[in-house]
Each structure stands twice: as C-alpha cells, then as structure tokens.
C-alpha cells in the first residue's frame, strides 16, 4: 500500500489531534485536513472535571498545543463546522456549512456526547460536562453553600461531586448502584470511595434510579428518585454516561453499534478508520469488540491508526488504563476489573489508604488498581500484560 495523498480527520480533540501528530512523526508529508465542530483549538478534557472546575487552572492551561505547534503540523484545521454526512465509497465528508472534503483516508474521531435525562433540555440549572463551555458554565454556578445534586455515580459523577464539595457546596451524589464507581472498580473499592466521599461531607443517596427532574419557572428545583423521594437542588449535574457521536453517520452504510465498529486495525471500511472514544474495535487479546473511553487510549489508538493509514499492518491490542482524582485519592487502573473478580492486596495497606490491588478471574490476572501508589501500580501492570498474551480457550 502506498501512503494516501490526502488524509481527512473528523473530530479535533485528543484522538484527532494525535492522529495528525503521529502521521507527521512517522514522516507523512501529504495533505491533512481536520474538521471539528467546536470553535476552540484542541483542548484536554480530564482537567475539566478537576483543575478547571475547581479553578486551580485557568481554562487556557487545558489547551493541548500552542498555536505555534499547531501550525507547525501543516494541517488545515476547519473549526466550528460540523460533519453531517460521509460517503465512504468516495471518502467525502459534507459539513453543516456546505463544505465537501474528500480524501484517500478518512479518520473518524468524533468522540462521545453526554446522555441526558428526559425533560432536561430547557430547564435552567441542569448541566452536563463534556466540553470546555460546559465546564465554564457549570463552574459559574458552583457557589459555596449551594445545593448540588450529581446524577450518576460513575467516574465523572464521582469526580464532579468531589471537586464541588471541595469548593464548599452541599453535594448529594445519586445513582442506581450501591457505591461510587461500583461498576468500574467493583464493590470493595466502591465501598472505600463511599467512605472517602462521606468523610468529606458528600451525601450519598445511592441504590435508587432517577425518575425525573422537578422545576419551577423554568429552573430546576430537585431530582426525583424512583422511590418517590425528591432531592432538593439549586444546581444539578447529569453524568449518566455518554453515547458515541455517530448520528451523522447513520446513512453512511458503516456498521454502527455502540460506536463505529472496526476490525483489529481500527478499519471501519476501505480507507475509513475510527479512533478514540467513538471507535469500537476488535481487540485480539480479549477476542471481542471494545470501546474505551479514556485519555491514554485516545493517544495510543491514534498512533496505531496513523501507522495503519501509512500501510503498517499491526493489530491494536492496548492494556486499558485510566486514572481518577477524588479528594486526596489518586486511583490508577490498568486492565479490566470485572465485578466478580477475586481481589487481593499485593502492596501497601488498605487502612493506610495506600495500596495496590490485583484482580483475577478464574486464576488469570485481569487488572490492577492502585490507590495513591502510582509507581507501584505501574510496576504491576506487567502481570496484566502477561496474562493478556497468554492465550485462553474461550468456551
């Protein structure tokens, strides 16, 4: 395969930008165009729920690259315009403003969009957190003493609850599971996170689904639970997960099923690739389709896709990794943590809140989780890698 004459990237954030950088780093000198619907130059999302929301950072610090570095990439960034249709055979993308861009290779990097609750739109005081504008709008409402209800006990909801509590709000965290992040880290660490949040004064109202929002004069006043109870609120954040931004691909003929479905090379069709949060790729190590919504995947997968675009033939087999910061706890997770895994403390001391846990299913290591022990956790990552590369027979 020869290198494409022109590459088009749709989505101008972590994975889109890194795709461009990786192409250049690998020596690609052809034309590159990038379409992004946000007006902002590419910025980083993890600080939005942490340093940007708390005010520790000026929003500018989250910018991914200086203007000088961006222009050094010699790519044509078309920002503030949304891709609305793709013709995969012609590899042409049409945008909301009527542009038509064609290329020899198209990389889809449109990420995910937050899910919302019925009745949320048009109700003031209710926020989601995905982009910089969301973060700044929410931040403006986080006044000490205000009552904040965070709907969603996942990673993002738990982080927002912690940040807001640090700012002096009366915070309630609600969601259907029994502990913060129970789905992501299992019941044991979920329990420890529940303790941590409660010690800092976050009120947990977990194990109940949300039935709806109540409001008066167009402004939210509370969150209604399925139990009939209403949690009074001045501000509400809805963090109930996100869906791949693929509506614009509905008529493209690509396989869309919880993301852009692609092979182990992240190829969705001839000359069409997907990367980052939107990509549901075949992971050869796990033998199944996977979609990873985390920051390091955006970078690693972008590098892999850039290689494939340039003719390398290597599967993408990452070890999933994410981190989260809540109060004084820094958690790092390598691999997968199934809810029914056997969990063993392999370093440190749970009572001292510095430890590494190893998760195993049927004797095989699936993941490691560190709580305030990042280096020691990384050193244990190799056990996850080794297990991943030991072939298992699937029943």
């Amino acid at each position, binding site marked *: 395969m020869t290198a494409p004459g022109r590459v088009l990237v749709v989505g101008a954030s972590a994975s889109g930008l*890194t795709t461009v*950088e*990786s192409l250049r*780093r690998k020596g690609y000198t052809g034309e590159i165009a990038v379409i992004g619907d946000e007006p902002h130059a590419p910025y*980083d999302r*993890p600080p939005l729920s942490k340093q940007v929301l708390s005010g520790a950072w000026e929003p500018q*610090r989250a910018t*991914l690259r200086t203007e000088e570095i961006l222009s050094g990439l010699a790519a044509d960034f078309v920002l503030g315009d949304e891709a609305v249709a793709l013709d995969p055979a012609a590899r042409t993308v049409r945008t909301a403003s009527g542009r038509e861009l064609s290329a020899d290779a198209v990389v889809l990097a449109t990420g995910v969009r937050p899910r919302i609750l019925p009745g949320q739109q048009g109700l003031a005081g209710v926020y989601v957190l995905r982009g910089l504008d969301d973060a700044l709008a929410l931040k403006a409402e986080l006044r000490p003493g205000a009552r904040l209800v965070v709907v969603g006990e996942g990673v993002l909801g738990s982080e927002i609850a912690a940040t807001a509590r640090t700012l002096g709000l009366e915070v309630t965290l609600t969601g259907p599971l029994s502990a913060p992040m129970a789905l992501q880290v299992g019941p044991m660490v979920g329990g420890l996170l529940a303790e941590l949040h409660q010690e800092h004064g976050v009120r947990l109202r977990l194990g109940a689904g949300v039935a709806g929002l109540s409001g008066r004069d167009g402004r939210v006043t509370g969150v209604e639970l399925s139990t009939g109870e209403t949690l009074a609120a001045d501000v509400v954040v809805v963090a109930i997960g996100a869906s791949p931004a693929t509506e614009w691909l509905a008529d493209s003929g690509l396989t869309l099923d919880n993301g852009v479905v692609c092979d182990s090379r992240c190829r969705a069709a001839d000359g069409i690739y997907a990367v980052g949060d939107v990509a549901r790729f075949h992971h050869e190590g796990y033998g199944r389709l996977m979609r990873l919504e985390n*920051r*390091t995947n955006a*970078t*690693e997968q972008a*590098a892999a896709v850039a290689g494939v675009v340039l003719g390398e033939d290597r599967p993408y087999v990452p070890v999933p*990794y994410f*981190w989260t*910061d809540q109060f004084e706890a*820094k958690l*790092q997770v390598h691999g997968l943590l199934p809810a029914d895994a056997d969990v063993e403390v392999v370093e440190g001391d749970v009572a001292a809140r510095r430890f590494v846990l190893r998760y195993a299913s049927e004797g095989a290591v699936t993941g490691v989780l560190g709580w*305030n*022990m*990042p*280096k*020691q*956790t*990384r050193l244990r*990552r190799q056990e996850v890698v080794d297990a991943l590369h030991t072939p298992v027979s699937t029943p």
Partner: protein
Amino acid sequence: MKVLIDEEKCVAAGQCVNASPDVFDQREEDGIVVLLNENPSAELADDVRNAAAVCPALAIRIAE
C-alpha cells in the same frame, strides 16, 4: 536534545517510563515523574519523543 518536565501537570500515569525507562522514573511516594537524564543521547531520542507523545498530561517538553 533537552528534556523539560512539568511536575504540576503530571498525573503519574507512568506512560513515559514505559516508553523510555532510561530517561524517566516515578517518585516512590506519589508517582510524579522524575527526570533521570536531562540531555539524553541521540540513540535515546526516539524513545524520549515517544514518551512525550504518549504522556496523557502533556507534562514532557522537548527542546531540540
């Protein structure tokens, strides 16, 4: 090549150490990046560029 790190941005992911163990390490207590070699030799340059590229916090800068 000169390597610069921003400890305040570092999120202790350790990706840099995986990419270039001769140049980067992490502090035992909090995992923040430690620069072992500010001026890595030419044969390490590729690894170091790779480390800067995979750092999820953009905490590594390279001045050529």
